[in-house]
Each structure stands twice: as C-alpha cells, then as structure tokens.
C-alpha cells in the first residue's frame, strides 16, 4: 500500500473558535446511525449550524465567504469526548484537509492522523493572527508546512508543531499503519505465543 506523502497543505481557512469542542458537537450521535462514513460531511457541526427545522443558525461554516475552506482553525482540547472516528471523518468528508488548533484530545488526534488529516498545534496568539488575517481576507492562501512545522499566510509565518510520530508518519506516507502492521505478522505470532490467554 503506498500512501501519499503529506508534506504540506495549502488552502483557504475558516475559524470555528472555542475550547473543548467535543466530538458530540462535531458530529452529533444521531448521525452515527450509518454503516458507512459517506455523507457524514453534511452533518459536521450540525446542531450549532442548524435549527431543528433545518434552517441555518449563524456559524462560520454557513458563511458564503468561507465556503470551500480546507483548513479548520479552532481552540484548545479540540475533539475531546468520544472516540468516534465519525468526528474526523465528518471533518474530512466536509472537505477539510487539515486542522490547526491549540491542542487536541488524544484519541481524536490519533484518529485524524490515521486518515491523513494533519492536526497542527499552534499557540493561541498565532491562531488568532491567522484567524484575523482570514477574517480580513477569506480568500487568503494559508500553507501548513508539515515538514518544517510552520504555517505561512499573507507574508507572515508562525510555528505549528506536530507530535514527532505523527509528523514522521505524514511526511513519509506512513500515516495509515495497516501496511506496516500487516508486515509484522510473524513477530505478532512470537509475542502471542508467550501469552497463554490468547490460545484458541
């Protein structure tokens, strides 16, 4: 299996501010009644974006000027709560290619990386600077440089870090571990043989 080397992501950005944005907020549980992930994008942030009758509430994702954005900006502890992969899947299916937030909940971070969705961590002030620039010009091109761990936008440059294992996985096309895990078949047998509870 050869995977794309994700060394950078370039696109327009949209800011969805707030700390502790949990996975129930990202994709409410009732939309998880599905047997495939297709179609989840439509319900991204549904309950903060829409009234019960489907009419739109004020939300950055509903603003025409931010349509087509591929980089999502947010606050601290993004993706906390449930382990549902439906959350990063909804973000990806909506069309986002990367997230820049202050910090992430662990399971969300891992799930996202496995999908090839880079989650960059940046300082709050720096995210605010990107958000301000995007607010002033929604067409602004934002570049997340995964290799050099920085974000470039409108002539400015801020630091954006990745956990080393994630950065390595993204830039070397190893973000989906399945191939490597399958390669370890023989080693798995050796470990399993030492664990009596695994005997059939």
């Amino acid at each position, binding site marked *: 299996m050869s995977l794309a080397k994700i060394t950078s992501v370039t696109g327009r950005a949209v800011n969805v501010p707030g700390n502790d944005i949990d996975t*129930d907020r990202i994709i409410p549980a009732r939309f998880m*009644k599905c047997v495939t992930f297709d179609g989840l994008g439509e319900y991204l942030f549904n309950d903060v974006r829409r009234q019960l009758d489907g009419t739109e509430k004020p939300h950055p994702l509903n603003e025409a000027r931010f349509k087509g954005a591929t980089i999502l900006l947010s606050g601290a502890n993004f993706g906390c709560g449930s382990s549902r*992969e439906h959350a990063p899947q909804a973000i990806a299916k909506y069309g986002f290619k990367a997230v820049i937030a202050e910090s992430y909940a*662990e399971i969300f971070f*891992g799930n996202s990386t496995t999908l090839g969705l880079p989650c960059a961590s940046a300082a709050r002030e720096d995210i605010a600077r990107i958000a301000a620039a995007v607010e002033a010009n929604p067409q602004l091109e934002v570049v997340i440089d995964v290799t050099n761990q920085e974000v470039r936008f409108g002539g400015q440059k801020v630091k954006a870090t990745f956990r080393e*294992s*994630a950065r390595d996985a993204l830039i070397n096309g190893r973000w989906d571990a399945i191939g490597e895990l399958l390669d370890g078949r023989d080693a798995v047998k050796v470990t399993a043989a030492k664990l009596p509870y695994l005997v059939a």
Partner: protein
Amino acid sequence: MPSAKSLFQKVWDAHTVRTLANGQTQLLIGTHLIHEVTSPQAFGMLRDLGLKVSMPHRTFATVDHIVPTDQLVEPYADPLAQAMMDELRKNCAQFGITFFDRASGKQGIVHIVGPEQGITQPGTTIACGDSHTSTHGAFGAIAFGIGTSQVRDVLATQTMALSALKVRRIEVNGQLRPGVYAKDVILHIIRTLGVNGGTGYAYEYAGSVFDGFTMEQRMTVCNMSIEGGARAGYVNPDETTFAYLQGRPYAPKGAEWDAAVARWKSFASDPDAKYDDVVKIDAVDIAPTVTWGINPGQAIAINENVPHPDTATSVDDKAGIIEALAYMKLPAGEPIKGTKISVAFLGSCTNGRLSDFQEVAKYVKGRKVAAGVKAIAVPGSQIVALQCEKLGLDKILAEAGFEWRAAGCSMCLAMNPDKLVGDQLCASSSNRNFKGRQGSTTGRTILMSPLMVAAAAVTGTVADAREVFSVN
C-alpha cells in the same frame, strides 16, 4: 534484580510486538470487543482490502447503543437501527465472531458484558471502538478506546500502533463518608485534575478506598477515566478481582485457574514502581458531587453554589462558565440544590450494574417519583436485568414510579428512542453532560451517583440524597 515497574509497563512490555518506523509501538491486543456503531465501517475497510479477521476467537461482539429498550421484537421501528443490527449480525457470522445477540440472554452494554462473562482479565490488553473501554481497567487490564480505522487494524492484525503513555498514580486514602459513592470519587478526581488533565497518561487508581472497593465500584471509576482525558485507567488486580472472575463463563477453570491467578498477580505494580506523577486525595474531602455545566469537570459538591463568572480564574475559565450557565439555564452563584428536574435516568456503563439498582431500591422502597418527573431505570445487560428481577428490584422501582426497561445504552446518548425533549433537565447516572448528549439539542444533563438520581426523582429537584433518604 529487574527494575520495579508499574502494571502499565508490565502489560505494555508483555504485549509489545515491535517498534514501528515512526517510533510507535506495535501492540498486541489480546481482547477485541466490538459493537454495532463503530464496527460496520471497519468491516467494510477489511473487505475492501481483502483481509480476514486475524483472531476471531479473541473478538467478541454485542449490541448496545441503538437497541430500543422498550421494543424487543424486530424489525425495530427505526430502519437505520435495524440496518446496523443486521450488519453486525452478518459480519459476526461471516468472520466467525461470537456475538452476544439479544436472543443469547447475554446482550448488554459492551463494558458490562466483558466483565460479566469473565472475558475481561488482569494483565491483558483490550481494545474497543468506544471511549469508555477504560472501564475494563478495573481488572488490571490496559484497555483502550479506539477509532474505527484502529478497529480495522485490530480486526486485521490483532495489533495496533500506539505511543507509550505516562502513568499517574491517583491515591485515595481514608474513609468515604456515608452517601458518597464511586461516582462521586471519579467526578471529584475529574473536577480536581480537569477534563484534559490526563492527556498522555494512564491513571493508576490506588489507596485504601480502591482496595476496599468492589469490582463494580472500581468499574465506575475506571469508566470515566476518559472524561478526565486519560487514555486508560486501571486498578491493580487483587483477591477482590480474582473472586469476581472465578466461575465466570470465560474465566480459566481447574488447574488453569491457579496458573492464571499466579500470572495475574505478577502483573500488579511493584511496590517501588516509579510513576510520572502521583496525586493524593483524602477520602473525607469527597462529597456527593453533581455537574453544573457541559463537561464532566464542571462539577461541584451538592452543597456548593454554581460558580459565578466573576470568580473565574482565567479568561478561558470565565468564557467556559458563561457558556455553560447559558446552556444549562442555571443562575450564576446560586445553589444547585433545589433545581427542578424533569427526567431521571438510572443506567449506562458507568452505573447500570446490579449494585447500583440494589442501592437505589433499598432507599426508594415505599417512596414515589415526584409528579411530572419521567424516571427510567435501564439495566446495563440482560444478566443485570435478570439479577435485579430475581431480587424483585424491578418491582420496587416500578412501584416507586420508575419505568423498568430492557438492557441497552438508552438515554446515555441519542442513538435509540430514549431521548430528552426540548430543554428538559435530566438527573443522570451516565458519564457525559455534553450539549445535546441525551438526544435533544437543548437538553440538559446533570451527572450524579445513582442514589442522587433517586433523590432527584422523588423530590423533583436536584437534592442531597443523604437528607432525602436519611443516609448516615
């Protein structure tokens, strides 16, 4: 002498297959639990890749999130729920996986079924596509909640890629006051350390309170480790653990039992093990605790007042308080006690076990749910239901005005017909009070122990169970 290690390190080492190119560990997962919500896509990915399930005999399935608790006959009223049920059945049949279907009499919430069947054992690794998998740590297992791609990885290889965790030992010593339960202990811990205080850590729960706890109490605490941001939580295995497991369907038998106990003991943390952090909590400082906000860390003792934005410790804290109070429609700085509720929910993988219903039944016997309050009691598994029914607890609860339901996740989340309506306020024994969690986008949740839910049910308000039921 090998150096002293914690249980986490021992289990991690015993299950390490190798180091991957990115520095992560390929970890063998001894037990894989699956349910209907997070597995269908993983089976789909497996098929796309032309792969088989690597160890079907170490994979166990149940159905919990979508099952209606008031309808046993299929097809279910919700065709989407039925489709998920059918999909799981098909996948288990095709890949030779044991499925605790409703007809088996062993169905229930995955985190109740594993321990109940004796599948959850000390010194093992467990994974499940569900965040509350940390529950199984109560047995001295290292148990991870994982995403669907990882479910696929475990199905295909019985391993997954992980980075090692740090270990924080949380000691709770002394004597809990009457009316203070395991639920209060974990709400207090999360309140103290914060909802992301556990990031990067596994929590080892220890101290005299945990030594004295039953397995069900230990499970309640480990269950909510994830709500404190910890990736896993565990209690070292001891005689209480072994006594619980002995005789269960999947527990070792005969001579194998003794060998297993000896092995399990060897996994317990060494007395001089080193920890990355140690936190000590005095049991007497823990009061019956309730949440007031929209995450499980926004909690106070029942006699405290809801915070006021003016007392916030930071800008973030202030914004958090304002947002939470607006959503919860609670007045700032006022007592939480006396707040009117409209729904009382007893159940979930946190507090849907026999002892939870026993404790409630003991006190609500002869009392009545307040007029206008909808109260439901939902056993966490068919076996819990049967145990309760044998003891007549279902009758006591029904006489008090609780609806006695069939096993499932029910009102813990919005994937089956049990849902809040509008901005109803629910006193809930579950584990998450996120916005919209219980099925209405404006629904409100206050987390508390089962007895506090009962106190709320009979008074129609958030109340101190110690006063309502003269607990002392």
